[in-house]
Structure formats: C-alpha cells, structure tokens
C-alpha cells in the first residue's frame, strides 16, 4: 500500500517534468530560466527569440497551453493547441518583442504549467542615414550598400547619426567588422548626442579582389549589414585578328586574340561566333564554327601580365568559313570583368564563283557521267555548259551544250541545311556504236552563278 501511494504521487509530476522550455539560437538549445531578458532593444526595432517546448521524456506530451500576456511581446506562428509532442521532439514558437515607445516591458509566457517572465527595454536610438558614398540603410534589411568599385580602389561612405528624440542619447559602442570594410573614422564611442544633434562619420571599403564583400556596422543594439562588390579594372581592349590571307569560303583560318598592353589581372571568358548569310535561301551554315569545339563558342583565358590570350588552351583557334557568303562576327563574353572598348570583329565572306572541289568523268555503255563536287556560296547555281572533246582535243558537235539546273539546285539548297556544298551527277545518254561512244575522250564543264564563272579542268573519260 505504501509503495502504491508513492507511485501515485510521483507519476503526474514526472509527466509534467518531461516538457522543457528552451531557447534556440540556431546552433544550440539553452534551458530558459523563470526569467528571460531580451535586453535593450532599439525603439522601433524587433527582436525575435526562438523558444521551444521540448519533450525530454520517453512518452508523448500534450502541449495544451501556449500563451503570452504582456505589452510588446507577441508569438509568431505559434502552433495550435492541443499539440502532441513525441518523445525527444519539440515544437518551436518564436516570440517577438517590438515597441516604438522607449520603456521597460514584461510579459508572461505560459507553456502548459511552466511560466517564464519575459523582459525587455525599448531604448531610444539615433537615426542612421547615408550621406554619401553608399546607400541605405535598406528599410527591410538595414543593409548599407557600398556599390561596386574597382578592386584595389577605396570607397568612402559617409553616414550620419542624429538624435531625433527629446532627450540626450548615449551611443556606447560603434564598430565595423568584415573584410575590406573599415576603419570607422570621425567618431569615437562612447558619445552623447544632444536632442536634435547630428554627427557624421565615415567607413571605407577597400576590396583587394574582384568579389562580393559583406560586413557589419554595430551601433549599440543595432546591427547594420554592410555589402559591397569589387570588379577588375578595365581590360585593355582585346584585338581579335586573323592572318592576312584573303578570306573566302571553304577555308580554315586561325583566330588569335591579343591585348595592347599587359593584362592587369587574370581572367577568362568566351569567344562567340555568329554567322549571317548574305542570301535569303538559307538562314545559316553549320560548317561555320570553331573546329576545336565543334560549336560557335570557344573559351579564352589570360594571366596577369599576358599580352597574348589563350584560346581553348592554344595560341590560336581554327574556325571554318563554311560555304555560304555572309558575315562572321566574333564577340567576347567576359567572365567578371569589363573591357576598355568593344572588341567585336566582323569579317565578310564575299560571294564567289562556284568552288570546284573535285570533278570527274566516267563512261557507261550508253551514258556519259560527269560528277562535280563543289560549293556555291551564292546559292544561285544552275546555269552550266558542257563541252565534249574527241581524242584529238576537237570539240564534238554541237559544241558547248547549255543546261539549266537552277530548279534542281534550288530544291537541293532548300531541302537541306548543310551549307552549299554539293555533289552533282549529270548523266548524258548517248547513242551510237561502242566505238563511236568511245571517241568521246574528255569534257569541260562551266558552272555559272551570280558571282562569276567557274570551269573544271579538262575531265578525261577513262
């Protein structure tokens, strides 16, 4: 009987004892005592504390009471009750303090049967404004932005503190933290600001590298994030250059990139190639590309002090001019730096007579076949003439035979997207004895487009 009585008294107590009220700072939990002081909070500012109700026992606990009573304090996103907390688990309920009126505040936080007295003091603070060299503080984040300056340079932000209250204010601490920010000059804490008094001070921003920087300005209870970015100095305008040979279709040319003076920093980026055909028959020519990548983009890089820029890891990079007249434009996409000018370079692939790559003549029983591999960068091919010769080199009647394959070429050009390269097979049916047919020994082919006339070498029938 004695043992049962003891257990009956202990069990309810142990059940309540499973629920602990703690605060959490994002890293660790600290048990909350019966009094929790928010400390001094600038009037008009908010201060949130993350409270948790943690079940430290080995059975579920029901959170049935969660409330706060008192001016200035409020609960943010509180869970609705009843709320069952599993063993080892917790529920979080941030509590915010906010007041525009300087005074001392208190409130009672009730977590089931556990009470915590919350205290805070709203204190008047001077207003902080940016006078020059920076912007802010941002109304939402309080961030003071130093903007973007060249690396190695120094930016100076002038800020003002003003006492807008009717009583003197003491600024006990004023400090700057963060790489590249500081020192703070023109003021030394502690200082007293009379009603209406305004003082200014400066903070320097001296970034050593091209990067984004952040820091903090602490003024007593208030913390102001500082931000700024640095960029590399302007790169001397790069020059994109080709060798001096005349540019034309079906060429592979080497593009090089250089700087007029030593690079002030190391950097990288991309060279981009664009192509615009001169004809409306096609919209592009896929053969116009950098061969090292098979694309129209190639990376570049240089080191501080270089005047020669590496293209895809080489001194130069080869591109194809394709088989279409038009303009090729090279431009740069710098990665994190700016250039002292626009290095965009355009070259023109002029219209040209049909380029003949290979031509051949073959003979079958009753046919003479002529094959021509070439390209027509004007996309106007079609007009041709064929002249056949005997073994003595005499032209065979009727002399030059005119043919117009314009429609066939137009159909070919518009049915594929591989540029103007073509393999043309022309067949001439012939009649006569085998001996007569064999007297046709060779042929010339003349191909005409809008840019001129091209002729094959004398083609010999084997």
């Amino acid at each position, binding site marked *: 009987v004695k043992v049962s009585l003891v257990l009956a008294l202990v069990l309810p107590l142990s059940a309540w004892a499973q629920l602990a009220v703690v605060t959490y700072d994002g890293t660790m939990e600290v048990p909350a005592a019966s009094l929790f002081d928010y400390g001094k909070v600038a009037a008009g500012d908010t201060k949130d504390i993350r409270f948790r109700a943690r079940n430290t026992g080995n059975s579920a606990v029901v959170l049935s009471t969660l409330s706060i009573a008192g001016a200035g304090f409020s609960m943010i996103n509180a869970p609705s009750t009843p709320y069952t907390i599993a063993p080892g688990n917790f529920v979080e309920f941030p509590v915010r303090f906010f007041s525009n009126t300087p005074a001392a505040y208190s409130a009672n936080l009730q977590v089931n049967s556990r009470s915590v007295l919350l205290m805070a003091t709203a204190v008047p603070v001077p207003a902080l404004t940016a006078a020059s060299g920076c912007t802010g503080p941002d109304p939402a984040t309080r961030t003071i932005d130093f903007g973007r300056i060249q690396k190695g340079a120094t930016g100076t932000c002038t800020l003002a503190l003003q006492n807008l209250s009717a009583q003197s204010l003491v600024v006990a601490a004023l400090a700057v933290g963060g790489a590249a920010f500081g020192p703070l000059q023109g003021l030394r804490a502690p200082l007293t600001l009379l009603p209406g008094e305004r003082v200014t001070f400066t903070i320097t921003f001296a970034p050593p590298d091209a990067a984004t920087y952040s820091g903090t300005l602490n003024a007593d209870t208030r913390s102001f994030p500082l931000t700024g970015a640095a960029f590399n100095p302007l790169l001397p305008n790069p020059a994109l250059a080709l060798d001096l040979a005349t540019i034309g279709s079906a060429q592979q040319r080497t593009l090089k990139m250089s700087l007029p003076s030593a690079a002030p920093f190391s950097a990288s980026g991309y060279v981009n190639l664009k192509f615009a055909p001169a004809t409306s028959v096609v919209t592009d020519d896929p053969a116009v590309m950098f061969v090292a990548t098979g694309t129209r983009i190639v990376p570049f890089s240089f080191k501080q002090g270089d005047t020669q820029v590496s293209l895809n890891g080489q001194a130069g990079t080869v591109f194809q001019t394709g088989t279409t007249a038009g303009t090729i434009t090279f431009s740069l996409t710098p990665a994190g730096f700016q250039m002292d000018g626009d290095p965009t370079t355009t070259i023109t692939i002029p219209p040209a007579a049909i380029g003949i790559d290979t031509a051949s003549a073959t003979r079958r029983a009753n046919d003479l076949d002529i094959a021509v591999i070439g*390209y027509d960068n004007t996309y106007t091919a079609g007009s041709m003439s064929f002249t056949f010769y005997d073994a003595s080199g005499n*032209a065979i009647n009727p002399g030059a035979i005119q043919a117009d394959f314009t429609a066939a070429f137009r159909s070919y050009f518009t049915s594929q997207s591989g540029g103007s390269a073509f393999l043309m097979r022309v067949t001439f049916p012939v009649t006569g004895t085998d001996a007569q047919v064999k007297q046709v020994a060779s042929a010339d082919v003349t191909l005409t487009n809008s840019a001129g006339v091209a002729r094959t070498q004398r083609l010999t029938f084997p």
Partner: protein
Amino acid sequence: VRAFAFLIVIVSASAQIEHPGLGLMLDQNGAARPVLGVAGSVTLGDAIANDVQALACSKRLCLLKTDASVVSSSGESADAPPGPALIAPPFIYFERTNQLGRWTDGELEPIDLAVDGQILSLREAADGTIEFAVARQNGVWLMDSDGTVIDSLPSGPVMLLQHGVIFADADAVILRRANGIEVRFDVAGAESFFPLGEGYVGVRAGDSAWAIRMEPGREQAFLLPRAAP
C-alpha cells in the same frame, strides 16, 4: 567543231544533287559519324553507331569493330575478340589477341598469322593478299602474310595505303606515294592514322583530328571538327 555519227542526247540530261561526304570517322566519344562537306569545310553528321573501336571502308565494304563484334555495312555481324582492331576490308586484325580474320560472305573467317612483331597497319595488296607494317626491335618493316620482309618503313606512326604509305615524324605527316614521291603536311605531333574515306586519311594529334587529302595536285591538311556536345 567536229561532228560525229552519234548523238549526245542532252535533252534528257539530268542532274542528281546531294550532300557530299569525305568518309567516316570516330568522334571523341567513340561514335562513328559521317564527315560531310568539302575539304576545309566539313561537319560531322549524326552518329551511325556508338561504342565503335575501329572502322574502315573499301569501295565495296565497310567494317566496324565494337567491343565484341564486327559489323559490316551490309548489316551482318559476327562475334569478335574484345579490344581494338586494325581494319583493311576485308581483313581485320585484333590487336589484343593477335588474331587475323577475313570478312567473307557476311562471316568472319580466321586466317593464320605468321608475322612476328607489333602490327601497326595492314592493307590488301593488289593480288588480294595481305601486307603488314610491323614494328620490330630493328625497325619497322613492310611484310607479306608469310612474314617475308618486302621493304623498310620509317619508325613511328604509319599507315599502309593502297598506293603508298603515310607516316609521321615529330613535325609533319609525310605521304610517300608508290612512285617514291613524298608530300609533307605541317601536322605536328601525329600519334596515329585512321582511314577516313576515299582519297583521305585521318590523323590524330593530341586532342585534334586532321584530314589529309591525298589527291595528287590537291594535297591538303585540314582539321576535323569535334562532335558538338
């Protein structure tokens, strides 16, 4: 103008036009792709086969070697030893197992191999037999299928051609025609050759692939593009 008794009927002359191609090559990912265009202005077509270890074409036949099979252009396939191969249709040499085969009527027939040394290249001779470029400690040799030395060859990467041989030194690729005439191409650092197409040989040099145009009077070296990612 001389008139003949026969008539060239031009009224019905017709033109067939298509996209020209240089041949086939393996891209950086082991995919076999057609090389389209004209010399100096080429693109790679869509892959026709993936995971290819070697390929070569003759006028009548293309053969490609995957890890464990040989596939012909007419669609037949046969099991094959794993690893790289040297192909000179209809012959195929399996480097890892040192086996030689001949593609006949859609099947791979083994052939006795009586050659000592490292086989660098092979070709079908004019009489239908096979010839090898073989590296030995005392040099590189052109040998017949019996292992008889026919000629000496320069050391380094080499490829036997139908009418000559192509090889490389540190600074250039050299085409030596059957008549002994040599043509040099400014392609430095050549590491290996591969058959590209009629009149063309491919060269691998570091990350680059080159095409060598061998047509007499039109000799030319130009880069082959990488397959776009």
